[in-house]
């Protein structure tokens, strides 16, 4: 009996190491994530043998998020349309609504919204799944069986998310533009035809990369990066989980928080790089 109480008293002390300055902690955890990403990318050659797991990840994350993307994308398009429409109407420029909705969906809103939804639904689930595996010794079990956990656990999630994110972004862009059209028609007296003509005109093909419009592929590249980042952060948090159910909660929280920050910061730098450089 004496031993049992002693263990419980000791455990928290053993799991919380002395605190480092915040900046060091930050740099260390970013470094860890980048290392995890690079080590997983080195296993990209395993992709064919992991195709079943990758497909499963894509399917699951697609199914989990599709309805949310549809709903949120639709409303975001409606908001953008209404907000800018009211201002444009004052200047007598409401025929430009289509252009503005299409460009802001494709460049910013589509990938941003999709990334946020993926973080909340799939990123949190990944951190919790891997975290639970960690605290129930399953990761140790993989290690003693000489099973490569980056190849088995991280690679499918990384590739799966990096592939599903642009697909969902396309869906989000499309419903957003459609949502904008409803509002334009119903509340701003801009006909479908005019709206769609200006929207399609805005996303002009550039002759580059499958002849996709620049704004569209810029958004899709962002989506791929967001997908990869969300998976990396979530896997990293999950894999290093310690401390039972509490630890799983901590990891999930950290994964969601840091992915959202990551999406916003990366978004700025990618926009800068793609449109100013």
């Amino acid at each position, binding site marked *: 009996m004496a*031993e*049992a109480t*002693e*263990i419980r008293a*000791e455990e928290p*002390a*053993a799991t919380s190491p002395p605190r480092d300055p915040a900046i060091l902690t930050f740099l260390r955890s970013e470094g860890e994530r980048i290392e995890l990403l690079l080590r997983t990318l080195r296993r990209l050659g395993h992709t064919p043998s992991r195709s079943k797991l990758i497909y499963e990840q894509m399917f699951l994350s697609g199914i989990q998020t599709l309805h949310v993307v549809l709903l949120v994308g639709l409303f975001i398009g409606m908001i953008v349309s209404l907000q800018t429409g009211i201002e444009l109407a004052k200047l007598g420029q409401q025929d430009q609504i289509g252009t503005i909705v299409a460009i802001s969906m494709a460049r910013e809103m589509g990938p941003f919204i999709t990334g946020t939804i993926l973080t909340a639904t799939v990123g949190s689930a990944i951190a919790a*799944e891997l975290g*639970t*595996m960690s605290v*129930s*010794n*399953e990761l*140790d*079990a*993989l*290690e*003693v*069986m*000489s*099973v*490569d956990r980056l190849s*088995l656990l991280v690679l499918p999630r990384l590739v799966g998310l990096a592939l599903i994110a642009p697909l969902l972004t396309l869906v989000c862009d499309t419903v957003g533009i459609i949502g904008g059209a409803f509002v334009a028609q119903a509340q701003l007296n801009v006909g479908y035809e005019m709206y769609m003509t200006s929207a399609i005109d805005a996303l002009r093909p550039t002759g580059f990369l499958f002849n996709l419009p620049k704004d569209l592929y810029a958004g899709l590249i962002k989506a791929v990066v967001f997908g990869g980042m969300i998976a990396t952060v979530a896997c990293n948090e999950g894999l290093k989980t310690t401390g039972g159910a509490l630890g799983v909660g901590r990891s999930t929280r950290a994964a969601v928080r840091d992915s959202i920050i990551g999406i916003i910061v990366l978004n700025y730098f990618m926009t800068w790089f793609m449109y100013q450089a």
Partner: protein
Amino acid sequence: MTTQATEGGPVIRFNEVCKRFGEKVVLDGFSMELARGKTLSIMGPSGVGKSVTLKHAIGLLTADSGSVEVFGREISEVSTPELAEMRKRMGYVFQEGALINWLSVGENVALPLRENTDLEEDELRARVEERLRLVHIPDAWDLMPSEISGGMKKRVGIARALITDPELILYDEPNAGLDPEIARSINALIRELQEGLGVSSLVVEHRIDCIKTVSDEVLFLDGGKALVQAKPEEFFHSNHPRLARFFGKESA
């Protein structure tokens, strides 16, 4: 591989191993040897560091000081790929089963083969089914870990540890949660593996009947040290005061 040089020596050798977690000292100058082809059981109070000892032997934990040699190699000095190779010769039965929760029972047992060998599907299935029969759960292939009892998880863990025909098996309480009948057959299995195939085993166990059946030697771990290491007959008749207290035989 440089293991041949010491092929005749002990399979596992702990020398003055110390390990602490934060302030808590778990191992404090722990030494022991497991001879090739033998079974050594470790007994000791709960929370004393038995699982920690096993984890050192398979490289999941590293000693703060002292040396842990497995197959004649200092385990903290081998490279990651070499450690992976060494682990393919070892089996580990986790205390809580540690089954991969998103794989079925059969796939859990098949995992080491799928990941590390190119076996044909038929051959692989046959081998997994044979191991499942050995631990008396022949029809469990399609069940998920969340659907089975603690004792069944334990047995799946044993089947998984046996699937690669290891030369060295580390069992963390193989009988915990098993009914006496199944426990006896698991004990017989451990014994058979040793006698038939020359497997060396390190068994953490509380049950005296099990220890008597399977072990060549028994070690009592307390206070971070090996207090007593002896043949079972001697061990259970030892008049070491700590042992007497542990077994509740204190008469004076």
